[in-house]
């Protein structure tokens, strides 16, 4: 596809359940970012992948959060034992290289009830 694709677009889950959010970056983009945006708030950095380098996980808020990027392409963000405070829009972005513009997907709106 032409842009960054995220799925699902909306996810409602019960507190305590695990969820997986998927990101398909633009083909050929080596850098991939995950951000979280709570209602009316700015973008909170979660994790950054660049090529085959070790990911920058410094933004993950707890050990319930993890992410992987398989084959340098698709990425999955997993949240275990979801809590109500995890409710937010999760945004994925990719860029051709670390110092070029990042393009965002439309996000996954996660609601924990």
């Amino acid at each position: 596809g032409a842009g960054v694709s995220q799925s699902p677009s909306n996810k409602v889950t019960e507190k305590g359940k695990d969820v997986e959010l998927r990101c398909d970056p633009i083909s050929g983009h080596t850098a991939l970012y995950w951000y979280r945006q709570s209602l009316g708030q700015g973008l909170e950095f979660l994790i950054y992948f660049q090529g085959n380098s070790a990911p920058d996980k410094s933004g993950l808020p707890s050990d319930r959060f993890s992410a992987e990027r398989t084959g340098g392409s698709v990425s999955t963000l997993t949240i275990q034992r979801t809590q109500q405070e995890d409710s937010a829009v999760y945004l994925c972005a990719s860029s051709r290289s670390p110092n070029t513009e990042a393009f965002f997907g439309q996000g996954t709106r996660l609601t924990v009830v």
Partner: protein
Amino acid sequence: EDQVTQSPEALRLQEGESSSLNCSYTVSGLRGLFWYRQDPGKGPEFLFTLYSAGEEKEKERLKATLTKKESFLHITAPKPEDSATYLCAVQGAYQGAQKLVFGQGTRLTINP
């Protein structure tokens, strides 16, 4: 730690009334400064990249400028369709500082 502060938080203008949005930053070695536009319920849309002080970029009614401490997004004769939240982000040059650090955004409303 890299930081970005945007001002004002919100701005209301009349159609045709020009103004500027501010983005102040501190970063250990600037690799790039990025401006985005975000409409409600959508992901941020890329506008500009600036790499060094003195650089300027233009697109339609928008012009972005960069100094060593801040960037401005100038909007000339805005139209209602320019209403959106404008986000500024910086990227550091050093290992471990390559994530994009965003400001809180400026919510711009253009009244017809």
